[in-house]
């Protein structure tokens, strides 16, 4: 047990958690809260923890305020806004000693029901709203704004910043502006007048946000698809990938309208299931369009057969896998990195697929664009391995950027002129020695370049063949093509410790934000660590070199079975004894505290140090 301390006091460094009921309209209020702090120049990291359900079940929204700019989950809650009676007890129990609890005191709770080591902040939300509004829906909705108002006062936030944001939000619905501002005032004033100085957590204006934007990975990836020239999106709804497709449609409907006809320079189709979605993507890619789908684990499983087809017939395809908790239906609204093995080896027979691992929404945008170049350059499916944490949470990231001189890499596609020039065309001939053949798009030329695409074994001219040697030659070329991929996929991001480090750490994807913080803390505690963030499969040679250069390498993953580690030992011929897997897979985003604790313990950091480091 930790000693009971006084009320927590901190400026720009604490965690607020809102416990709500889903369907009650709290989401936008909570987001308003987070964005208001951003407007004050203070970095925040927000995480939405919601049930697989539409209405009436517990949902939480966690806001980490971090003047230092740590964007991973820290772990623990300093200030709980406990508005859900179903989870009230649990929510209270999860507050750090010395923390705060805000609750709706319309029906006051007897003091002995509260933990003695926390500060309780009662606000009669229902009473305030019932007084102010007659309409039951309004009574419900404005409650959320009232508590945001109260928080604004309690944390010493800039009331004008909040109002400004509300004004922006209701720009198109001006009627709603005034009542919202009013509700905000109710809360603000109540707290200012009745709860003055009760809270020692404060937000203070900083200049740490800069040009950064606050955006969800699914949205950023969707923008990447638009900027990268994707014209066909075929998909099937599934949490947590749905908003990727829906955002693509939204952005494309804005940026891709033919100026004359007002018709769409893209095709957006909700398929009947995931098998159809990937079938459409493969058909469209074969026909020369940039096409993609977005899905999650169950969809990846269902698409397996067609992934093998695309691998073997060498058809480009871009697939976003926004990973959630598996196996099976698992935890549809929780995060995990547990589809790596499936995606890497998807489909029967000998197959290997290219995977990209973006660390945040910014990289989702970049890798979305890169995925189309890679898929067309390599003529193969490319998987962008996101997760719910990146995909469905707003993250504070560098602004998205695009170089107008950049040209799409459409890969080796023969034009009518090139065909006319009369080079003999064989669909699967390795002309350039990089194992990537040339392809043609249907309808290009009246008499040159037609071929018959098939998933059955074929020769260099795409003709059916059951000849063993022909088949083997094709399969070996595909292996060589995977070697070519190594040099084209994003290189791992390495960071060396200031001192010489015994240990290396390999990690990827959404783990990065928590890792950055964990490493800073561990380094301070005397444990230097070299870092390598893997950004793609196949692994670049740098990965092997990094592993070779360290006595032991921690591999930090958000799955049970150390899937990246398995890929590394299998594909890079590395002795598994080198690896120390650190696995977090309960469906919540990995925290800096967890990483610190695990690494400290296994690196033999003195117990006390480790304990302390983990705080």
């Amino acid at each position, binding site marked *: 047990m930790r000693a009971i301390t006084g009320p927590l006091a901190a400026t720009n460094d604490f965690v607020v958690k809102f416990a709500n009921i889903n369907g009650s309209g709290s989401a936008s209020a909570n987001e308003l809260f987070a964005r208001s702090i951003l407007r004050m120049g203070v970095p925040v990291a927000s995480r939405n923890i919601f049930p697989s359900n539409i209405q009436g079940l517990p949902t939480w929204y966690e806001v980490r305020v971090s003047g230092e700019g740590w964007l991973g989950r820290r772990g623990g809650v300093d200030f709980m806004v406990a508005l859900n009676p179903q989870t009230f007890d649990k929510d209270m129990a999860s507050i750090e000693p010395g923390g705060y609890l805000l609750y709706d005191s319309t029906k006051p709770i007897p003091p002995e029901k509260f933990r003695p080591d926390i500060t309780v902040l009662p606000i009669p939300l229902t009473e305030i709203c019932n007084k102010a509004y007659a309409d039951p829906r309004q009574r419900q909705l404005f409650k959320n704004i009232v508590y945001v108002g109260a928080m604004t006062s309690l944390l010493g936030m800039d009331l004008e910043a909040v109002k400004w944001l509300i004004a922006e939000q209701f720009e198109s619905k001006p009627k709603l502006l005034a009542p919202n501002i009013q509700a905000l005032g109710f809360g603000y004033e109540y707290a200012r007048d009745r709860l003055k100085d009760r809270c020692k957590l404060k937000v203070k204006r900083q200049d740490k946000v800069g040009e*950064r934007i606050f955006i969800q990975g699914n949205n950023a990836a969707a923008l990447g698809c638009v900027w990268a020239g994707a014209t*066909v999106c075929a998909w099937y709804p599934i949490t947590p990938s749905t908003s990727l497709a829906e955002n693509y449609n939204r952005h494309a409907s804005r940026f891709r309208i033919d100026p004359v006809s007002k018709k769409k*320079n893209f095709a957006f189709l909700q*398929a009947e299931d995931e098998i159809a979605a990937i079938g459409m993507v493969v*058909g469209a890619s074969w*026909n020369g369009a940039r096409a993609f789908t977005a899905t999650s684990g169950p969809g990846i499983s269902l698409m397996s057969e067609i992934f093998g*087809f695309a691998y073997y017939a060498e058809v480009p395809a871009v697939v976003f896998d926004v990973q959630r908790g598996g196996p099976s239906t698992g935890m549809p609204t929780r995060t995990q990195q547990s589809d790596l093995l499936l995606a890497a080896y998807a489909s029967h027979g000998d197959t290997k697929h290219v995977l990209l691992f973006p660390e945040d929404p910014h990289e989702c945008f970049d890798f979305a664009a890169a995925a189309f170049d890679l898929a067309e350059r390599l003529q193969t499916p490319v998987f962008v391995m996101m997760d719910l944490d990146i995909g469905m949470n707003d993250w504070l990231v560098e602004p998205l950027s695009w170089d107008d001189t950049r040209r799409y890499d459409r890969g080796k596609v023969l034009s009518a002129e090139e065909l006319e020039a009369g080079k003999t065309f064989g669909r699967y001939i390795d002309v350039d020695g990089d194992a990537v053949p040339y392809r043609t798009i249907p309808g290009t030329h*009246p008499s040159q370049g037609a071929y018959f*695409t098939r998933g059955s074994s074929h020769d260099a001219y795409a003709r059916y063949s059951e000849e063993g040697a022909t088949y083997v030659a094709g399969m070996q070329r595909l292996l060589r093509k995977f070697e070519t991929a190594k040099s084209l996929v994003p290189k791992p991001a390495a960071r060396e410790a200031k001192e010489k480090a015994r240990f290396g750490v390999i990690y990827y994807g959404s783990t990065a934000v928590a890792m950055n913080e964990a490493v800073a803390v561990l380094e301070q505690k005397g444990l230097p660590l070299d870092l390598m963030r893997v950004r793609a499969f196949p692994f670049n040679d740098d990965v092997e070199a990094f592993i070779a250069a360290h006595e032991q390498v921690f591999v930090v993953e958000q799955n049970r079975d150390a899937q990246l580690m398995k890929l590394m030992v299998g594909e890079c011929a590395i002795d598994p004894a080198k690896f120390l897997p650190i696995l977090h897979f309960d469906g919540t985003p990995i925290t800096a505290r967890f990483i610190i604790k695990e690494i400290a313990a296994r690196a033999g950091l003195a117990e006390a140090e480790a304990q302390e480091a983990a705080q």
Partner: protein
Amino acid sequence: MTYIAKPKLHHPSLQPNALGFTRRDYEGRISTLCAGCGHDSISAAIVQACYELSIEPHRVAKMSGIGCSSKTPDYFLGQAHGFNSVHGRMPSVLTGAAMANRDLIYLGVSGDGDSASIGLGQFAHALRRGVNMVYICENNGVYGLTKGQFSATADAGAKSKSGEVHVDSAIDLISMALLLGASYVARSFSGDKKQLVPLIMGAIRHKGAAILDVISPCVTFNNHAGSTKSFDYVREHDEAVNAVDFVPARKEITADYEPGTTELVRQHDGSYLKLAKLRPDYDPSNRIAALAYLQEHQAQGELVTGLIYVAPEAADLHDHLGTADTPLNTLTEKELCPGAKALEVVNGEYR
């Protein structure tokens, strides 16, 4: 096995069509199907239809699933790109291809196992979306390539070669298509080229989802007594509702058109379907009546063939999607990429 290239002997008597192509230019590789297989006759009918329509072969995309039937796109239109996909998924692959380039002719070939068993979902959804395509199901009531098991179109009561009796209800793709909103619905018989060729021609010129259910006997596994998909059975039970003639767009309508018994249907592109009414009470423009007619006559053991239904002005997938006229696969950075400035605007919206 090595591939046997087909000798390209140009027969001097072969007439060139309007584009100067002879029938040979519409052929493909030598078939590897069983001698006498109905599917080969359908390939020949496709060749004939494309020849007569003077289609540029390379403007056709041939798509298929898996099965003996699905192999056939290799055996016609050698100058067209082909796509032999996986079992039952041709419709989605075709839909994707059609999204990418609205200007090609999409010819989907499938089998009854491919379309009615594993592929029923994709079959249905492609039709209800109005994908602009010609979908030919080469229907033999069995899985030819896996050696003769019943498919989902096998009729209840039909006997297999080994004497097993089929018990489940048959899936009637044509009735389904009528329910699902297909806008050109026909049934024919691989042994009746006269009926089949103009039906294919009409389907190619149709805008929207055209489906042809072509009974195509499997001589190896389903051509015995007791089968309801044998040559003999089909010949005996075939009841054509009309005889179709295809009249190209700019051709004049000649005088052999007798009102009352003959009907002209103008298609979207200006071509006509000239229907000789073999069943005077049959109206192929009435979907509901067509469905009822099919049900009644099929219940009596008749195999209704001909142009069952046509809606010449139906909307297609691209109308539904609102796609621009320029094929998506021809757009470049210029049309596609909003550029750095626009991205700056977007960034601003997330601050």
